[in-house]
């Protein structure tokens, strides 16, 4: 979250000669990041990023405190001004409002009545300051509450005292269906559980910690004000604020556990300004009920642990001095070399374990001061996962792109239409409970439909696409899905090109490829009679065939893990052939509808001296194969070869 803080306002709380640029640069290195310095109304205004655990910095005072702690690290003197806010002079009159608190919902209520309020616009200096921090000036009463929250860090509310007709405030949870109208005239329906104030008759008169309601907020006719600070449970604030999307500054602060101890000075400052700017007077006791008061806990931290994190050992005096600047009180036991740190109440929620204090020490010291070095520790050679997996992935991708393939990354989440195209039923897909869009709703079980979509959007593309990505097969109930890698190729070009790439890939993997035609398609993704099973070294690894009918598209789908099992990085070296091959072409007539793959395999299997078979072409039903006959131990004569050749032709003739 961000906060804007004008430089002049900061310097009312921070005594330093540092320039705005120095503040921005140095504080960002050791504390919150000053993202920008704007110039508004002629002076610098800091735009500061505050992390969610540091709500104590969401105020001028809080930021000033950080600056005072950090700047001395850069040899710039800086100190927090002792801004004295006059204590509230309460009246002896009791507060005539019956307050029924629920300590489980609200940890503190601090309130006081002011009478004789003259409502009007705020003076120029106040309006200007509010505008510098992107708040609108409305009227003096509301502006004061905003101003004081900005300055001291605790949200504060002003009720029109007289509009609290029943003179009763009950802290309770809302029931589902109850309605309330916020001060900006929007009506909300409760979901149930929101912390609300009830006037005793069941009517909601405030949404505490988030926004005032129209029925009790101050108006230009207000004469008496009930100044009020409460400390509602932070989780409740967040739930309510998020559910109804009321993200006021008060909500943003309160949901992060603002320190209730800040209420005292915040209220006092508000009273001071009310007296000054509205002519009001305090006309009641100071009502303070604080069931949720918690004392900060002391934490012990060993010097050795601090050294472990920083890699250097700071002297205890240095550490004590730094912590003092952060208002963390420190005791050091030199015998046990242990520190006892006690955080201030506004850091109690954040500084809980030793590492939290180590962060304070390290950041103040300056991360930039620490040396930069690589680990000298042992390399993890134990229990290594299979290294080859990633090497092979990259290797395969380089090969495929080298043969013209375009690698694509398509989304894992798909539409219902794409999910159904996979050949698996829609119901068998895992789906999101809260999708961003209908286009990205189902966890895909095949990559192919995404490629078909790609092709449809680039209809002129006749090249080859490839992708290696997970598909998500649902597991048993209460188990994660079977997430496994699929490698696919797709193309609207020639089938031969696609198959050639597959063949080359398996060749480079030193494997033996076989495509077995399937009579029945394994799923509706594939066209009947146009799909084959891919086997490498006799292991089934996937399918190849036609995947779209009207616009002819071919695909290869490989189970990557199965493929990985068959890929070899190195060949089985055969040694050098001593004797030359005899190369002869053989032409045979084959009946229509003969699968060539099995024929070629048959030729190989026919005789051990047949070392290579190349398909040359076909002409009018006559198929030509170029056959390499070779022996390891002798020169083959033409007679040797002819004998085999004749036998082969006979054998093929039987087909």
């Amino acid at each position: 979250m961000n906060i804007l803080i004008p430089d002049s306002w900061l310097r009312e709380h921070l005594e330093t000669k540092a320039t705005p640029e120095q503040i921005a640069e140095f504080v960002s290195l050791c504390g919150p990041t000053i993202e920008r310095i704007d110039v508004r109304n002629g002076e610098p205004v800091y735009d500061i990023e505050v992390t969610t655990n540091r709500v104590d910095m969401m105020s001028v005072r809080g930021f000033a405190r950080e600056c005072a702690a950090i700047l001395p690290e850069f040899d710039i003197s800086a100190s927090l001004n002792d801004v004295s806010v006059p204590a509230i002079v309460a009246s002896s009159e009791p507060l005539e409002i019956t307050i029924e608190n629920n300590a489980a919902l609200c940890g503190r209520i601090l309130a006081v009545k002011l009478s004789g309020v003259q409502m009007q616009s705020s003076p120029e200096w106040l309006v200007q300051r509010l505008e510098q921090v992107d708040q609108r000036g409305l009227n003096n009463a509301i502006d004061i509450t905003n101003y004081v929250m900005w300055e001291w860090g605790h949200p504060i509310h002003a009720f029109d005292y007289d509009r609290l007709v029943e003179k009763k405030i009950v802290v309770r949870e809302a029931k589902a269906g109850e309605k309330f109208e916020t001060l900006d005239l929007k009506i909300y329906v409760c979901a149930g559980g929101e912390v609300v104030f009830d006037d005793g008759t069941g009517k909601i008169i405030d949404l505490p910690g988030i926004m005032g309601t129209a029925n009790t907020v101050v108006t230009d006719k207000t004469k008496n004000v009930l100044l009020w600070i409460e400390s509602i449970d932070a989780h409740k604030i967040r739930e309510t604020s998020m559910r109804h999307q009321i993200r006021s500054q008060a909500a943003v602060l309160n949901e992060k556990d603002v320190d209730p101890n800040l209420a005292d000075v915040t209220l006092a400052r508000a009273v001071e300004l009310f007296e000054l700017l509205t002519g009001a007077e305090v006309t009641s006791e100071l009502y303070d009920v604080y069931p949720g008061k918690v004392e900060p806990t002391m934490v012990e931290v060993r010097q050795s642990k601090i050294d472990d994190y920083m890699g250097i050992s700071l002297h205890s005096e240095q550490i004590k001095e730094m912590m003092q600047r952060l208002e963390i009180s420190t005791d050091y036991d030199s015998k046990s070399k242990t520190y006892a740190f006690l955080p201030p109440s506004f850091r109690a929620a954040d500084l809980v374990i030793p590492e939290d204090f180590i962060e304070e020490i390290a950041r103040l010291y300056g991360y930039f001061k620490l040396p930069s070095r690589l680990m000298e520790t042992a390399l993890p050679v134990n229990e290594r996962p299979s290294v080859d997996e990633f090497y092979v992935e990259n290797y395969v991708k380089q090969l495929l792109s080298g043969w013209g393939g375009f690698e694509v990354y398509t989304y894992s989440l798909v539409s219902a239409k794409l999910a159904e195209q996979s050949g698996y039923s829609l119901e068998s897909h895992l789906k999101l409970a809260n999708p961003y869009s209908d286009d990205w709703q189902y966890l895909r079980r095949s990559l192919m439909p995404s490629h078909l979509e790609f092709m449809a959007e680039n209809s002129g593309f006749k090249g080859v696409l490839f992708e290696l990505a997970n598909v998500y097969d649902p597991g048993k109930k209460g188990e994660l899905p079977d997430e496994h890698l699929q490698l696919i190729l797709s193309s609207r070009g020639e089938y031969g090109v696609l198959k050639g790439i597959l063949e080359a890939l398996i060749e480079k993997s030193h494997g033996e490829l076989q495509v077995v035609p399937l009579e029945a398609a394994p799923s509706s993704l594939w066209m009947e009679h146009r799909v084959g099973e891919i086997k490498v070294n006799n292991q089934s690894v996937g399918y190849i065939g036609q995947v779209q009918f009207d616009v002819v598209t071919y695909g290869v789908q490989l189970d990557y893990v199965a493929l990985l099992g068959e890929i070899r990085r190195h060949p089985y070296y055969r040694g050098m052939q001593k004797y030359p091959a005899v190369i002869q072409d053989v032409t045979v007539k084959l009946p229509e509808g003969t699968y060539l793959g099995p024929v070629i395999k048959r030729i190989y299997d026919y005789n051990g001296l047949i070392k290579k078979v190349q398909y040359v072409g076909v002409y009018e039903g006559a198929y030509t194969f170029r056959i390499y006959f070779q022996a390891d131990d002798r020169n083959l004569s033409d007679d040797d070869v002819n004998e085999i050749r004749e036998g082969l032709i006979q054998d093929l003739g039987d087909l």
Partner: protein
Amino acid sequence: MTDTQIKEIQEKAVDELQKCQELARLEEWRVKYFAKKGLLNLMFKEMISQAKDKKLFGQDFNAMKQQLETDLSDKEAELKQERLENEFFDVTAPGVDPKVGHVHPMTQAIEEISQIFTEIGFVRVRYPEVDWDWYVFEGLNFPAGHPARDTQETFWVDAAASEKYGPMVMTTHTSNGQVREMERLKGQPPMRMINIGKCYRRQQDLTHTHMFHQFEGMVIDEGITIQHLKGTIDYFCQRFYGPESKSRLRPHNFRFTEPSFEVDFSCTICKGTSKLADGSSCRMCKSGWLEIGGAGMIHPNVLKAGGVDPEKYTGFAFGWGVERAYTIKPGLKVDDIRLFYQTNLEFLEQF
């Protein structure tokens, strides 16, 4: 007598040699005269039997042979030169397209990142994209009701929850690998993990896609300090962006680290000076620095969740966007991150 005979042979040979206009004819001539069973050898055999002074004859004949050899190589050189000068050979003619394909930029980036960390002993792993709430959030010290678990940011899977591990989600970060890696190694360092994978978040615009990639580094051992985190980050940025690249840590806050940092790298365009060569302000960076992502010392609760003894071991972790790291390399400013995952050939063809 043999003199004149030798001379005649020589003249005839030279005459025929000169008539050769092509290298192929030259080869024929060479075979004719110089082959084992060629003219010169035949004539030599014939004539030496008739020669009176065999020694002298041999000398004269060989001298002639050598001269012919010289003439041959001269002629060869001449014909070659002629061809080179007269035959037009266009060295600039466009070549035959060897079918240029394209490895996706994400693959290229991941490869480079993986390589860099492997150099310093990291082990590459991959972990589920669909995971349990325990590994994605609770084990990483996110309490119930934490904003990160809002339906705003996280994709929840419509499936039965696990009794032990909670509901099923799409992981929003590669940090789900941290506790899983600790479990894989049974809580025993040394651990140096580089986990690179897909992440999912419920947003889609110019600078966010609902699916993106992150790389997560994690080191756990005895005596691991903030200095080692700095060293690792410096090693990465100097290898990935160049030796002049610098890193910077700023205090930040994450649930799974303590201390936590935001990491910046010196701007790759203005080299950290925040000014360009012509004096104008660099528009790529914030005062010379580019944000890369978060890092920190692993929170003791996370170590415990992974079965690692936080009293004995410390560790650091960082998790950054691959797209982010890649597109801040000079010349790779892809303004619309959705292009990485769109069906756009024009985009892919550039890589």
